[in-house]
């Protein structure tokens, strides 16, 4: 059971307007959260702030009983991992792209399991591409699915994803969403996704809407 808390987060534009104003994210595992909101409302800024990848002011980062300081951001990111928008890839093979993090200092306590990786690759239907193929063969949608594989193989207690299903056909997007939900259940993890489509928000454990710099819970009943 993981208990996650991040915030209050505040972020200003250069002209002094709030993009995020005292936003707090606090969840208990297992949980699948979907965040949406009008475009440009700061959804990506929010996820990047949680990951510590921008200069937003973030008062507190806590996982279970452990608080993480700014100096411990790399370690935090190993546990609270963000799948970036547009699913960037390393210049290398599929295998490089799903296993690289296990070679980092902060990945030394985890072991890469190729079997598990292959299982997930099957689930997201990337199994037609050999593991040693170079990623520049992949289409946009395939890169996004590779991103999901990378995240699930890494298996962090908190997985954030910035539009992980873009470029996927509806049916495939649905099954990938199910895979993310199943991950939160099986691993007792927290999954936080920024997704536009309401149909996903309706199927989440929690639906949050970001507007004018603040988060609101949307009642789904």
């Amino acid at each position, binding site marked *: 059971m993981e208990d996650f808390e991040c915030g209050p987060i505040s972020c200003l534009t250069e002209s002094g307007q709030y993009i995020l104003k005292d936003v707090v994210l606090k969840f208990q595992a297992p949980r699948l959260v979907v965040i949406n909101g009008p475009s440009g409302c700061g959804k990506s800024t929010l996820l*990047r702030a949680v*990951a*510590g*990848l*921008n*200069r937003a002011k973030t008062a507190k980062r806590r996982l279970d009983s452990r608080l993480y300081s*700014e*100096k411990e*951001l*790399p*370690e935090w*990111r*190993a*546990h609270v*991992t*963000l*799948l*970036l928008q*547009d699913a*960037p*890839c*390393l*210049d290398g093979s599929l295998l490089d792209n799903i296993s*690289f*993090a296990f070679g*980092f*200092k*902060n*990945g030394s306590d985890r072991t890469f399991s190729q079997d598990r990786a292959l299982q997930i690759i099957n689930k997201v239907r990337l199994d037609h591409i050999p593991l040693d193929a170079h990623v520049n063969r992949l289409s946009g949608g395939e890169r996004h699915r590779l991103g999901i594989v*990378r995240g699930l193989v*890494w298996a962090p207690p908190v997985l954030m994803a910035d539009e992980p299903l873009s470029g996927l056909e509806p049916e495939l997007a649905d099954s990938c969403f199910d895979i993310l939900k199943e991950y939160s259940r099986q691993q007792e993890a927290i999954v936080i996704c920024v997704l536009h489509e309401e149909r996903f928000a309706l199927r989440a454990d929690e639906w949050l809407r970001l507007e004018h710099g603040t988060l609101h819970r949307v009642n789904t009943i």
Partner: protein
Amino acid sequence: MAHYIELTPFDLFLAIGLIVIAASISAALKLGLTRSLSLAATRCMLQLGAMGFILKKIFQINTPVLVLAWLLVMLIFAAREAVRRSKTKYRGINLDALATMTVSSLVAGGLVTQMVINVQPWYDPQYLIPIFGMVFGNSLNGICLCLDRLTEYVRSRGNEIELMLTFGATRAEAIRDGARQAVRTGMIPIINNMTVAGIVSLPGMMTGQIVAGASPIQAVAYQIVIMFMIAAANALGSMSIAALAGRRLVTDFGLKLPPMEKT
């Protein structure tokens, strides 16, 4: 001291004829270089002339303070030039370049003058000034190349660096590949120079010593020492500038890219 033919002002006047040849070619072919060529030639004459007088004075007065002060001036100019030549500039680049130049040249030049050649007295300007001049000039090049390669890497592969950071990489882990490539780039020119030395090119210092009447064997010995010194200075310089610049470009909060210099 072995003998050599002294040049008179008249000889220099004759040499101007050579520049006139270059300028007339430019004029005949309408290269549009006549003006910049003459300007460059004039600057070259004035700068070297001034340098000659300054060096003559320093050699006459011959005190450690003055020699060190002059080395400091050269160091600052070299660091400034390294910054001026690199395509991107970030906050703190001046300090990084100066620190790097200081460490790399001090180690390489210091070892050569004080331990290999064993200059007596230790500050003898006849050795220190030309030798440190060569270290400065060459590490400047290495630093520039290394810096450009590193910023280019961060610019073109920034999303890969971010990807590594999101999965828990430390800054050092995220920039490691880029820094390695940058240091390589900084060291390639001196490796090339050493490879062709003596076959394709007779290095300037060796040529100078031979003209001044030194035995070719001694000239070669000096040249070898100098080349190894430059290699060490380049390796040290590239490594430290990559480390320093890497820290500024990849921070705890992700990438921090400087704006592209307008050309």
